[in-house]
């Protein structure tokens, strides 16, 4: 679950908007391929293809019942990828909030005291 290969698969799976939408749906509870396909106006094979990518990335699991095989969100892989991105984001957001304040200050400075590039 923690290997770089696993995370590559996770990030790649999350890069697609349809797959993110499928995850958002599964966050509300398990669903079958048929149930997932309906609101997306997609064919079942197309949805199945996306689900395979999500499954390989460890983001979802499929039930064993031969007929229904419901899909279920696997929060660990997602939480790990999310944790990494969130911490990275927080670090930069801190920097940028300081930059916002600095830019405000520089734009309020009286004429002649600015430091813009000539």
């Amino acid at each position, binding site marked *: 679950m923690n290997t770089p290969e696993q995370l590559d698969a996770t990030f790649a799976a999350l890069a697609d908007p349809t797959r993110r939408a499928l995850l958002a749906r599964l*966050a509300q509870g398990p669903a079958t391929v048929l149930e997932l396909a309906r609101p997306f106006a997609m064919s079942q094979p197309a949805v199945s293809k996306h689900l395979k990518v999500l499954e390989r990335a460890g983001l979802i699991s499929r039930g064993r019942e031969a007929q229904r095989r419901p899909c279920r969100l696997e*929060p660990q892989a997602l939480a790990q990828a*999310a*944790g990494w*991105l969130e911490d990275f984001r927080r670090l930069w957001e801190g920097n940028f909030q300081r930059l916002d304040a600095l830019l405000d200050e520089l*734009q309020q400075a009286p004429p002649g005291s600015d430091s813009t590039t000539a």
Partner: protein
Amino acid sequence: MPHTLQLTTPSENEVQIQRTFNAPRRLVYDCWTKPELVRRWLTGPEGWTFEVCDIDLRVGGTYRYVWRAPDATRMGMGGTYREIVPAERIVANELYDEDWTGGETLATLLFAEHAGQTTVTTRIRYSSPAARDAALRTGMDQGMAAGFDRLEAVLASA
């Protein structure tokens, strides 16, 4: 209202950070390239400060940053400017002293102004997908108690 930071992973070995600022691009560019201004914001985690902030802004010129943490730990990095179009584009390679990025990275900075606001896009290309993931992992000690609540953030930003 503060602008939202867009964090994306455009390819398997890249990270892109995009943010808009309420200022003309020359001013934003200055804040990114003049040491006396850089020192005031690019300080990372709470309590960190610049110890060294040297910038020789020309193609082939180098830059060197060293930060000091509250516990006196130091973190240094530096690189060489590869391409400079004033107020528009900077390309530089960068390497941390501790090399936690798994080799040199290539950073491309783009400044675009629209209606008095400037959007800065930073794209960092790591030497490999594993190197990128290792870089994203730094700072993980700030709290890996990640839970379901982060789902929304990722779904909105990935």
